[in-house]
């Protein structure tokens, strides 16, 4: 049954996967460096500037350090699940990239239900954390895992409503179609409040400051990964940054017009689409860093209040409003057959 055609398809799929994963991993490695430099600049420090010119080799030094250290498995830990937790986090952060279009029809899998696929994968991210927290057999890790489970489930609800708002304006679940629907105006303008809610929810979903309660080092040491060392910790770290990039890409696709230039004429259209996409993603990532440097950590009850009592009603009202306006002015897109 193994024919040359099959082998060629297989090789092409592997190459396609590498073509997106290698840039993602390079971006992730340099995001760790960029974050420290940006935070340092915002706090009038220097940041890592010793390894290589301007400290540019710092990610490699960090990687070597993590690979060479010993992986410690605590005595009371559940060995299999303890090691499965970080792997799951990292794998899920990589798998989601299959549907991200960086240019018109430039996605490994241009599937009908792209948004749902991304939503499903991002809702699974919590398992890596829960499993790690439980398998560590440590109070702090377990507390971190419980916090994370409640937090992610809460913010997914309002994220879902925001996505439905966008889908109402597009009439399709395909990511490519969502970007093409923004040819005239990016959705961040007509749906501006939803854009803000979505951005804040992505902060909570990725467990970034000011919602980094699952790892809140001042209360629960380092939260769910307190027992992890070397590369098993490294996988959590890489997974967190890859998730940041994933959420930034999702924000770019849903609200910032994906690969489309800001204005559809000459000087802007000269820049190729993937570059626009990359620039918008970097802008979102910079916002992540900026928020971290600016805001103190939320208290847990404030986090829950924001999710359930502020974002959920607001996004629900805006959803009804969007649907009513689209229906009332006969703007509803016809279902794409």
């Amino acid at each position, binding site marked *: 049954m193994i024919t040359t055609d099959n082998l060629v398809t297989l090789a092409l799929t592997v190459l396609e996967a590498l073509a997106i994963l290698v840039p993602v991993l390079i971006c992730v490695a340099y995001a760790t460096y960029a974050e420290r430099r940006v935070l340092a600049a915002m706090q009038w420090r220097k940041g890592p500037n010793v390894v290589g010119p301007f400290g540019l080799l710092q990610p490699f030094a960090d990687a070597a350090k993590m690979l060479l250290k010993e992986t410690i498995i605590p005595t009371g830990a559940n060995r299999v699940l303890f090691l499965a937790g970080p792997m799951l986090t990292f794998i899920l952060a990589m798998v989601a990239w299959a549907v991200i279009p960086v240019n018109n029809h430039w996605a490994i899998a241009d*599937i*009908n239900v792209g948004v749902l696929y991304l939503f*499903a994968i991002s809702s*699974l991210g*919590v398992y890596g954390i829960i499993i790690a927290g439980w398998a560590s057999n440590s109070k702090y890790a377990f507390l971190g895992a419980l916090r994370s*489970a*409640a937090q992610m489930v809460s913010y997914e609800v309002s994220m879902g409503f925001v996505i439905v708002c966008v889908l109402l304006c597009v009439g399709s*679940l395909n990511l490519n179609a969502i970007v093409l629907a923004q040819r005239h105006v990016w959705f961040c303008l007509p749906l501006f409040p939803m854009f803000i809610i979505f951005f804040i929810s992505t902060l909570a979903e990725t467990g970034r400051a000011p919602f980094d309660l699952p790892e809140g080092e001042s209360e629960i040491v380092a939260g769910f990964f307190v027992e992890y060392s070397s590369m098993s910790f490294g996988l959590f770290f890489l997974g967190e940054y890859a998730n940041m990039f994933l959420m930034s890409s999702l924000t770019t696709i849903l609200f910032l017009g994906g690969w489309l230039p800001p204005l559809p004429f000459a000087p802007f259209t000269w820049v190729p689409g993937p570059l626009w996409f990359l620039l918008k993603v970097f802008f979102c990532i910079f916002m992540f860093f900026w928020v971290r440097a600016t805001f103190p950590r939320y208290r847990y*009850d404030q986090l829950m209040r924001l999710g359930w009592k502020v974002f959920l009603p607001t996004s629900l009202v805006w959803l009804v409003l969007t649907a009513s306006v689209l229906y009332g002015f006969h703007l509803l897109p016809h279902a794409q*057959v």
Partner: protein
Amino acid sequence: MLASALFWVFAILLIVSAALVISARNPVHAVLFLILGFFNAAGLFLLAGAEFLAMILVVVYVGAVAVLFLFVVMMLDVSFTQVREGLQRYAPVGTAIGIVLLVELVMTLGGLGAAMPQAAAGLTATPTHLSNTTALGLLLYTHYVLAFQLSGLVLLVAMIGAIVLTLREKPRARRQSVARQTSREVADTLQLVNVRPGQSIAELGVLRPLETPPIPSIPDLIGATASALPADPTRDGSA
């Protein structure tokens, strides 16, 4: 070829993980096998061409319901020896329910082929001219809109019931009132007073400026401070 191989992989994994859900000694492992089972079911949906159902299965069951399952099982510390004590007693009831479900399933499948040949012929997961999501939406919101709304209503009632059952009024609990906090002004809480040397604040009458009490004598003042403390707006449980 690939699809049929994947079917066998998903089907076998689904059955094995379902068996492990009920036989695993550790309840957390049981829930994790349940999640694996959901995944393989989603895989089978995908192979049948029902990609919308597959994704919704993962989003709803794996992403939300199973998280809460896992949450509860980890918190409760269920002792399985205690659960197994009732095994002998409840086994006949469980078997009976299982048999009834099996008979119903067989009858449904048999009846479907016999009674509705047209419907059975039309049972394709992917209509040729519509995407799967559109077809599902058209059917749900036109032909079955009443059933759809009713099931939503049932869920709403269940949700309200759960809240009513678990809500406990705690009169002594301190809650944060965000509106009250943000509507506080400097003038409400702060007063600058020029106190001359030797003069006591009791003489100025500024200890509780908000209530503007008559200037009390010293013994009264000590008693009043103690009783006035809980009503102090600055101590609103927000510390």
